[in-house]
């Protein structure tokens, strides 16, 4: 075996504005944690261990969006220390649910919520990591799919291409053998505009896809929205369905603003 294959990947996990759910997917890999530890050295993961090694890192997993001036600087430093930068989850790849602030006057809210607003130093928007630094790989979802994370790490470990599809949730839904709930039950489902990767969990349990993996390749939410309206769904409900975890990512952003469905 070559020494190259033996060297462990040095991994850093970095958190920005987020709920920690995606980072925890790493710990959630229970069955594979031992073999993971053989292949990967978790050098920096404050959520899991107080031992923190300095960079550079082979892979940096970045969770969360950029919401403060301090974080906007920090991500630049992290980028410089990571050979490969991977955003994990809807916050890091799209700005997250906290990007709802992007449509509102933040100062007014801060004044209402905090006793001493002058101590709060935040940006008026929540933005994805890719708006600040180049990103090598995106893992979508709220939260990410732990199997996709493992697939990515396994691929990087042997220097192969990871299998991260960018087509629709419908493809996974059909392969899984689900009966389409949109067609058979009239349940509004964002699957035909949303990127695969979750394994079509929601439709498998009778719930329409919420779009938590964000827009698929050549996503056409407008076509879907027009159809949902024609089926009798309320305009507001259709627009709002695109304003969730990935509200700030085009083309969901436009749809949530009602463009094309007025």
């Amino acid at each position, binding site marked *: *075996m070559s020494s190259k*294959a033996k060297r462990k990947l040095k991994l850093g996990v970095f958190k920005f504005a987020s709920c920690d759910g995606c980072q925890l997917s790493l710990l959630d890999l229970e069955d*594979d944690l031992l*073999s*993971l530890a*053989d*292949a*990967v050295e978790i050098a920096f993961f404050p959520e899991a261990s107080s031992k923190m090694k300095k960079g550079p890192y082979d892979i940096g997993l970045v969770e969360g969006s950029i919401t403060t001036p301090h974080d906007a600087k920090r991500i630049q430093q992290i980028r410089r220390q990571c050979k490969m930068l991977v955003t994990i989850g809807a916050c890091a790849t799209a700005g997250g649910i906290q990007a709802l602030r992007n449509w509102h006057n933040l100062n007014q809210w801060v004044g209402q919520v905090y006793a001493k607003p002058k101590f709060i130093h935040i940006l008026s928007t929540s933005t994805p990591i890719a708006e600040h630094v180049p990103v090598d790989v995106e893992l979508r979802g709220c939260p990410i799919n732990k199997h996709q994370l*493992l*697939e990515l*790490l*396994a*691929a990087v*470990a*042997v220097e*192969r291409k990871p*299998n991260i*599809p*960018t*087509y*629709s949730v*419908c*493809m996974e839904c*059909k*392969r*899984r*053998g*689900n*009966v*389409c*709930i*949109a*067609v*058979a*039950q*009239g349940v509004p*489902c964002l*699957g*035909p*505009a949303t990127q695969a990767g979750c394994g079509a969990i929601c439709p498998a349990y*009778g719930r329409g896809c919420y779009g938590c993996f964000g827009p698929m*390749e*050549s996503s*056409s939410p407008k*076509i*879907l929205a027009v*159809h949902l309206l024609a089926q009798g769904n309320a305009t507001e409900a259709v627009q709002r369905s695109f304003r969730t975890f990935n509200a700030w990512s085009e083309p969901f952003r436009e749809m949530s603003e009602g463009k094309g469905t007025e």
Partner: protein
Amino acid sequence: MQPEISSRPEQLPKGAEVRMDVPALELLIEALRERGYRVVGPVLRDGAIAYGPVNKVGDLPAGWTSEQNPASYRLKRRPDNALFGYATGPKSMKDFLHVSEIRTFAAEKTDGLFWILPASEPPPRYAFLGVRGCDIAAMLVQDRVLIGGQAADPFYEARRRNCLIIAVHCTEPASTCFCVSMGTGPRARNFDLALTEFADSDLHEFLVEIGSEAGAEILERIPVTIASTEMTSRSRALTDRAGQAMTRHLDKDRAVSLLRENFDSPQWDRVAERCLACGNCTMVCPTCFCVTFEDSTDISGQRAERWRKWDSCYSLAFSYIHGGSVRSSTKSRYRQWLTHKLSSWVDQFGSSGCVGCGRCITWCPVGIDLTEEVAAIEKANSAARKEDS
């Protein structure tokens, strides 16, 4: 009075037609199971009548039918207790013979040696109960692609070789069906056994046509009687009526040249404004055979697997070659799908790639209807001709 069971020969000849009642159908399912078949037939599931495991008559969707329209499928009660009174559903035999995901290969490295692991389990033997003329025709289309030839697929062939087909002639097509146009139904062909169900009278019974030795063999110990000519002609009348009731049409021979000559039709832009490129039409189509192969390794780097998965000409990766995707626009992807299905398929495999089952119409989440698209291309074509002259 019914003739005695013993009054018929032990083994009925191919081509014979017999009468069977519901208790005998139960025995038939039992006989199939005893012979090691996994019986697959219509079952109620998640708001649809879909093919799934059938262990007894009670599993069949008695008294249910479906109402189908573009982008809509709804279960409906029937006035009778028919077991097979529905049209095609969300699944086809493809789901069982050309399975959506299968591991084709696995290997492990131990002590510096590379081991190929044996295939997981022997392929199941399926008996398909209740499949339709269009379903069988679609299977034969897949046979031409996946057995022998360039794209031979041993996993498909292994499942296909072993299976037994008990068709049910369609007597009530859905609004989305157009098998008559494609010459595949409503009367099934190429079956081992074919049933016509009569559920309207007090006598719930079936006409059974014997299409093969295997079909005759399975009937050996089932109490059936020779069918009357009246029953045979009633069966023909039912399928004739079903054929006449079909509302959708497509000129399959015309489509071959029409699509070949209309690569630049303005209709492709119009359909691209409605198509999501979601791939549902290809997933539900019983003839669409495209697959991708995904190689993966586990985190230890000591184990590798190769998986075959249904792919779709609607995905970007499908036409990815060095430098990018050849079909980057939705327009080019829809055009590829329709043109292949109805035109270049004929050049490639000697038959149309469409059997008229209507699944792509019902299960397209926005209800794009290929028969309407073909009609619109024809219309644009004649408009352009007029302008030219």
